[in-house]
């Protein structure tokens, strides 16, 4: 089951996550994984497949059904020299972890002035689109990104999933790692098992362009890329930025892009009000105002409860909705 290192394999996101877990557990004996159904069952999305056989049940810990406990146990472990990587089955079940994360994980270092700390990762599939039951399609990134002392990371492709997960595990502070459920098996990409982490404080400029800046993260990156393709066909050059490390936020990269393009559309799946797109837009309203030719548009989920499967596509932004906002921008500020 153990993957062969140093040889690019064509992997999906979920396979890249599995690979990163294998790699880091092999490299660092202080890494362990815990969560519900992650052992024999290999996780409800198979992210932890093969870990139990390879690393044993001491380091691959099936927990009772108690998310507060999972977070708290990770905190306890992290103070004792371990680097726990906890899996929560769906991000909608992260809410019982919130108290532990905000009142302890993000604070233990500060509270003890560096005496104790919490190098831990909590992973969860995030966002909708797989026709799952209620509570399995939530957008949790902003709830966590508002918390000081935390890092929030949302990979959008296999290579980033691998490199950012390594970085998250190695980071000396708590990291919430939210994975794009509906992209888990959507496409493959060559991923080399080189053990190299990606930076946790830099946006990824995926594609350069001078007419418009398209900003997104996680699952919505997929539609954002497709929208950029469509715009390219029309001769509009969109610069595409993946804000994979939402918190702390690298505004420099986004501001530099907008300084060049003068137009910005931000795409998020979460409810609109108080989403992370608002944080980015607010920074643009403060630091980028003079470069902006047009209003900063946010494409987002609605301020409704996430609908059940039959209506989820009404809620989740898509290429059409992205293009519609882009058109508004060019209507106000036509390409010269």
């Amino acid at each position, binding site marked *: 089951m153990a993957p062969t290192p140093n040889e690019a394999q064509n992997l999906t996101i979920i396979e890249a996550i599995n690979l990163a877990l294998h790699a880091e557990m092999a490299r660092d004996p202080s890494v362990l994984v815990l969560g519900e159904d992650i052992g024999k069952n290999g996780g*409800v999305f198979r992210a932890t497949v093969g870990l139990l056989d390879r690393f044993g049940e001491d380091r691959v810990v099936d927990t009772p059904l108690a998310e507060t406990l999972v977070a708290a146990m990770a905190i306890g472990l992290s103070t004792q020299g371990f680097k726990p990587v906890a899996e929560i089955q769906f991000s909608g079940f992260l809410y019982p972890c919130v108290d532990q994360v905000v009142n302890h994980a993000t604070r233990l270092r500060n509270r003890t002035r560096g005496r104790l700390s919490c190098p831990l990762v909590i992973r969860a599939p995030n966002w909708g689109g797989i026709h799952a*039951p209620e509570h399995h399609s939530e957008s949790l990134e902003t709830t966590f990104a508002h918390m000081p002392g935390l890092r929030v990371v949302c990979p959008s492709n296999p290579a980033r999933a691998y490199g950012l997960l390594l970085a998250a595990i190695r980071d000396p502070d708590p990291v919430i790692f939210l994975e794009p459920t509906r992209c888990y098996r959507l496409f493959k990409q060559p991923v080399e098992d080189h053990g190299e982490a990606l930076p946790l404080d830099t946006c990824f400029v995926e594609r350069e362009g001078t007419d418009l800046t398209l900003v997104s993260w996680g699952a919505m990156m997929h539609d954002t890329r497709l929208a950029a393709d469509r715009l390219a066909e029309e001769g509009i050059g969109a610069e595409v930025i993946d804000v994979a490390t939402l918190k702390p936020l690298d505004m420099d990269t986004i501001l530099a892009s907008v300084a060049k393009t003068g137009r910005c559309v931000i795409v998020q799946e979460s409810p*609109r009000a108080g989403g992370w797109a608002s944080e980015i837009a607010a920074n643009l309203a403060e630091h980028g105002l003079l470069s902006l030719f047009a209003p900063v548009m946010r494409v987002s989920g609605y301020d409704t*409860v996430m609908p059940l499967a039959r209506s989820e596509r009404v809620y989740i932004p898509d290429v059409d909705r992205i293009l519609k906002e882009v058109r508004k921008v060019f209507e106000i500020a036509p390409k010269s």
Partner: protein
Amino acid sequence: MNPELSATRKVASFDVFYTQILDPEGHLVGTPPAFAQDADELRAMYRLMVITRAFDKKAVALQRTGSLGTYAACLGQEAIGVAMGFALRAEDVLIPAYREYAAQFKRGVPMENILLYWGGDERGMRYPAGTPAAHDFPLSVPIGTHIPHAIGVAYAFKLKKENRVALVSFGDGATSKGDFYEAVSSAKVWNLPIVFLVSNNQWAISMPRARQTGAQTIAQKAFAGGMPGEQVDGNDVLATRLVLERALERARQGGGPSLIEAITYRLHDHTTADDARRYRSEAEVQAAWARCPIKRYKAWLEASGHWSAADEERLQAEAAAAAEAAARNYLNTPPEPPGAIFDHVYASLPKALEWQRAEVIARGPIGGEH
């Protein structure tokens, strides 16, 4: 020093009892309860068990053919839902988990509502007005979180001096959650009319009961709240209904809350999204089939002269037809219009959301699917 000094004395004691009336072969091992005098009632219970199993089978089939979302089967646990349905009074409030379909059916929920819910349509949880279910809680997916709602519901009964009970049901896995314990810990503080009913089906997805908690029985968790806790054979519909009725009656009479651990077995995968072969042996499942609640109850009904092969044939046909009709109704239900996602977020749409709803309506249908 006085060598007779004894530093330690006993201050409290607790016992857990287990009840079974019908053994797996359908032999009586206990005295049948009073309700067993009524043969029509006994047959109605059997009928509901069989119809529920037919529904379950149909739902799984719908999922396998791509016509239903993830579905949580109740295969092997039908006796508990039936016991709940028959033990509850119309005015009681059921706060269920998601595997007690028999209870929902008994209380007036059309089968197609359950399909709608797992099919991704919120209207599934809008139970028909005028039925006992109309005031029941919807299925609860976030494990255990619905349990403390019973505290508020039962407190309301007490405050209004209503003679009603809140029955809250959940799985063995749910008994690890803080929400469960906060409810158990406090129910007796107000001596509330609540029955906590655990369907211990031995598994929480891939986690076997023995590794879910250090407790030898789930029943003993009741002692954390100072209330009685007992075990019952949850595949024995007579015993389960009896024990449940006693607990409901005690609660109704002001005797306070209690907890019942109904011991059963999940014969199906956790849900249709699960493959239980990854984590449990076929042998274990086969052994559990020998304890099937329908088999034993039918054997006893037949032996008691309450049921015949002809009855069985009629019922199987009726059950299959009912499930078939439900599937048809479900599949023929057109999706809600897109704007509906705004209609029940608040009692009335806030001004701030009007443009969002207008945008959705202007866009038109996106392709609601089953």
